[in-house]
């Protein structure tokens, strides 16, 4: 993927694992000089407020490290659950699948002058 990192979340995360993920990811962003992170949650059938917060946190951390985060592959049921929980994940860009997510990241890098306006919702 070159300058992008792909994170695929496939299992239910508990605290320890989530902290490990944040640690590994931030280190990888720094080490590879990644400009974008794709978090693929298409395998998650269920999401709770914990995961929601974890995703928002990862996104914020990546932004501080000058990388963009795009969340991809959210299933309809998961989207509805998050909305019912009142978690709209503001500031996290989203895309339907990995392909679209990559397009989004590439375009944002091209417009890196107005970068903060583009992906922020």
């Amino acid at each position, binding site marked *: 993927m070159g300058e992008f990192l792909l994170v695929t979340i496939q299992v239910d995360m508990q605290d320890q694992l989530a902290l490990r993920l944040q640690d590994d990811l931030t280190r990888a962003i720094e080490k590879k000089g990644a400009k974008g992170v794709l978090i693929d949650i298409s395998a998650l059938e269920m999401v709770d407020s914990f995961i929601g917060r974890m995703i928002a946190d990862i996104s914020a951390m990546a932004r501080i490290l000058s990388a963009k985060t795009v969340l991809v592959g*959210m299933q309809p049921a998961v*989207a509805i659950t*998050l909305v019912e929980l009142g978690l709209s*994940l503001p500031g996290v860009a989203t895309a*339907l699948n990995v392909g679209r997510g990559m397009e989004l990241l590439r375009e944002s890098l091209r417009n890196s002058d107005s970068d903060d306006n583009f992906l922020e*919702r």
Partner: protein
Amino acid sequence: MPKGILAATLQQRSQKILAQWLKQLEHGAAISKARLSSAELSRQAGEFLTLLTDAAQSNDITDISGPGWLPVRSFLEDLSRKRVLAGFSSDETATFIFSLKRPLFEALQEECGSGDIAKLSNVLWAATELLDKFGLHTVKAFQASREEVIGRQQTDLLELSTPVVKLWDGILALPMIGTLDSARTQIVMESLLQKIVETESQIAIIDITGVPTVDTLVAQHLLKTVTALRLMGADCIISGVRPQIAQTIVHLGVDLQGVTTKVNLADALALALKRTGVSFTKQ
């Protein structure tokens, strides 16, 4: 003893009772409105009388909730259900039972003879109570069946009234007719999001021309749908915003959170096409 006389009368005089009962029923609405054939009606009456006679032989006639009366109760529930579907009213259905009273009373009178008035009045009272209970049971079953039909129609209506249409590659439209309550919102979200996944669409246009009023609750439901769409990486445009709605939204202080709104579907479509990089030229 009332039970004994009633059971015996039913057993011994059933032919005559049935014949007279049918005569009563034939004059009733069922035949005159031609919703039930003569043959079908006499079959129903015959079956009920047989079940009633059998059950009365060995069961307590003051309590119809016992297991021995189950065949009679089931028959009446089935009858009610059929009559609901055939368009009968509840009183027409109950009359089926009540018109049995006169033939039954006459038979009881014959059985008791002209001797003991007290005995006769006791058994008449027992008979009337029994038939009243069955009449009420029939009405109750009728109501329940009706409500079942209404419930089913409501579900159908709910599903039919939220179609998701594909306007163009990557552009879906959801024309909403009627008010938006939480049950409807759930269905809308599910079908819309599912369609987004299936068609890999990027933009959904929700047209609210057919929504009579937008109050804070409706606005909340709309925004929920918009948020869910965003989480899945799609964009949303709300079209069909009428002047009254615009006023209401501002007066209520509803925050549309940056959702693009358009007055009509045409404008929304034009914007959606622009966003997806499609343009048309006139020849």
